[in-house]
Structures are given as structure tokens and as C-alpha cells.
């Protein structure tokens, strides 16, 4: 039984692709056969974050149009076993994603015994975002502690509850909130919405909090998902998130400010 998971947010630049790459890698590292699909037709970027941009031959739209087989288009990840990337088309327009076409690709992945299919949604609420969420069993809603991101997440939650196959069948998509770019010191100073504030507003179960971290930019610079950077706080937070998604009980970390001594606070 495959589980289809959409990574979505509404707002752009909050960390959907970073999260998709880390999440899919984390699942594969635990032995699950995983595919990660880039739904951002025209603005392909998952390939860069996954470090496979030079190995793209065929893409998602080629498969939908029958110009390539799924097997030809799926890129096997070089670092992580069990992990496969399906890149978005860089040239076609976004109308190329049809419900029938996307549904067929997802069905073929089910038949190929993929345990997880991670759908990396584009920003916005247009066709690409709709198609990324339509077949989902679970949704990871990525939110920054910032007003426009929280509002857009609420909008996306409304769409998950009405415009998905599950909703049409009277069922519901399981929702999980992932807060990214969290800065405990700014929360403590009253400058940034805290985790509890966001939870109170959105009322969605929290699956993880990723701290603001330099390691995320380093990871994207080198094309290596940040979860592989096991020494970094963001990498560890993503690993905790994957474990929680798989049902483990893992306490939340990186929520409090590291205590500094008096002199470090004065001169640090």
C-alpha cells in the first residue's frame, strides 16, 4: 500500500522543496521505497536541491504524455538507496498536468510497490498546487512564523478539506503542520510568532519545528538534502520529523534559546 504525501504551503519560499527533499531522503534512509515528484512545472528546482540536475533526461510531463516511460524518467538517487526523483518539466506550461495523467503516474508508482510518494507542490493555489494535493493521503503543511505564511497555510487547509479526492469521497486528508525557519531567540524577544501561537490559530497537529539554520543554504548550495547533514540542527530536526511521521514519539527540540552566560550576552 503506497502512501501519497503532499508537501504544500500556499506561500512561496517557506521551504517546501527543502522539506520534500529532506523528507523523501529520510524515508528512504529508513528502508522505504520512496519517490519524490516535482509538481512545479516551468520552475523546476527539486532536481537542484537533490543534486541530480545534470541527470535529468525525461520529466513528469513526458511521462504523462506517453513520450517516456515512468522507469525512464525516474532518477535513482546516487547517495540514498530506495530513493527516486521525478523532475518537473522546465519548458511546458502548467496545463500539462491533468488529473487523469497525474492519477495514472501515481497508480503506476503504487503498482511498482513504492511505499511513499512525496509530492512537492508549487507555491500558489493554481493547477500545479491542486494536482499535487489531489491524490494525497497526508499533507505536510509548511509554515513560517510570519503573518502571510500562516494566512496562506489556512487557505491551503481549506483546499485540502474540499478540493482533494479524499474530500470528494467524504474522507479527509491527514494534516500535519511543519514550522520552518523558527528562531527561538526572536520568539523569546516577542518579535516572532511562537509555536503555540501558530498552533492555536491553525489548529493542526504539529509534526515538527525546523530551526532557522545556515546549514539549509549550505545543503542547497551543494545539492545534498539537509537531513544528510547529521551534525546540523536543521538536519536533526528533519530527522525527528520523519520519525514522528512514521509513528515514533519524539520530543520536540530546538524550541528554546541556548542559555548564554552574562559575559557572552554582553560581548558575544
Amino acid at each position, binding site marked *: 500500500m503506497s502512501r501519497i504525501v503532499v508537501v504544500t504551503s500556499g506561500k512561496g519560499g517557506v521551504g517546501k522543496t527543502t522539506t520534500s527533499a529532506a523528507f523523501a531522503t529520510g524515508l528512504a534512509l529508513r528502508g522505504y521505497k520512496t519517490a519524490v515528484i516535482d509538481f512545479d512545472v516551468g520552475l523546476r528546482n527539486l532536481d537542484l536541491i537533490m543534486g541530480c540536475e545534470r541527470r535529468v533526461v525525461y520529466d513528469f510531463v513526458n511521462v504523462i504524455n506517453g513520450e517516456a516511460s515512468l522507469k525512464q524518467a525516474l532518477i535513482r538517487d546516487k547517495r540514498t538507496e530506495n530513493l527516486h526523483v521525478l523532475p518537473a518539466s522546465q519548458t511546458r506550461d502548467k496545463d500539462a498536468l491533468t488529473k487523469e495523467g497525474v492519477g495514472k503516474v501515481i497508480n503506476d508508482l503504487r503498482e511498482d510497490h513504492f511505499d511513499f510518494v512525496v509530492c512537492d507542490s508549487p507555491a500558489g493555489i493554481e493547477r500545479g498546487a491542486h494536482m499535487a494535493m489531489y491524490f494525497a493521503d497526508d499533507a505536510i503543511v509548511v509554515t513560517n512564523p510570519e*503573518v502571510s505564511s*500562516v*494566512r496562506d497555510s*489556512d*487557505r491551503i487547509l*481549506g483546499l485540502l478539506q474540499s478540493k482533494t479526492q479524499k474530500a470528494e469521497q467524504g474522507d479527509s486528508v491527514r494534516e500535519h503542520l511543519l514550522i520552518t525557519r523558527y528562531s527561538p531567540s526572536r*520568539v523569546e*524577544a*516577542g*518579535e*516572532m*510568532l*511562537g509555536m503555540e*501561537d501558530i498552533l*492555536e*490559530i491553525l489548529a493542526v497537529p504539529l509534526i515538527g519545528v525546523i530551526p532557522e539554520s545556515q546549514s539549509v543554504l549550505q545543503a542547497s548550495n551543494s545539492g545534498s538534502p539537509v537531513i544528510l547533514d547529521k551534525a546540523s540542527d536543521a538536519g536533526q530536526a528533519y530527522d525527528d520529523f520523519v520519525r514522528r511521521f512514521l509513528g515514533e514519539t519524539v520530543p520536540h527540540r530546538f524550541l528554546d534559546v541556548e542559555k548564554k552566560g552574562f559575559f*557572552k*550576552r*554582553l*560581548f*558575544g
Partner: protein
Amino acid sequence: MAWFDYFRQGKQGSAKLAKERLQIVIAHERIDRNGPEYLPQLRRDIMSVIRKYVPITEEQVNVQFEKGTDYDVLELNIALPEREH
């Protein structure tokens, strides 16, 4: 300038304001989303009727829509401006 930050600690930040603004705007948007499709237009129509008689702003009209088991409740709360004596 870490020494400067030290003395600034405890100053009231803007996060509280962000939360309050979000709660209001999201509550409004949820009503429009979960209520019947005619709700936003109904709100505008009611506003324009009332405006024929008294000047009111968008914030003075509060529309609540609640789904019940047997029936739904549409609640309109209009705060009229203070009467001039």
C-alpha cells in the same frame, strides 16, 4: 552590538499584534469558506442597504455562520455608530 541588546530585553515585541491580526482575518476567511457560496455577496448587499441609512464600515458588520445538525445559523451583528444628540 550585544551589550546594546542586553538593555533592550523585555521590550514588547510585535508578535502579539501579528497573532491578533491573524486571528481576525482568518476567522473572517473561514466563515466565507465554510458558509454558503452566496455569503460574501450577501454581506456586501446588506452593507449597501444599511449604508443608505447610516454610515458604517466593513469592521462594524460581523457575519457568523454556524453549521448545526438540523439547521444552520446565519448571525449578523451590526454595530451602528453612536447616536448624535
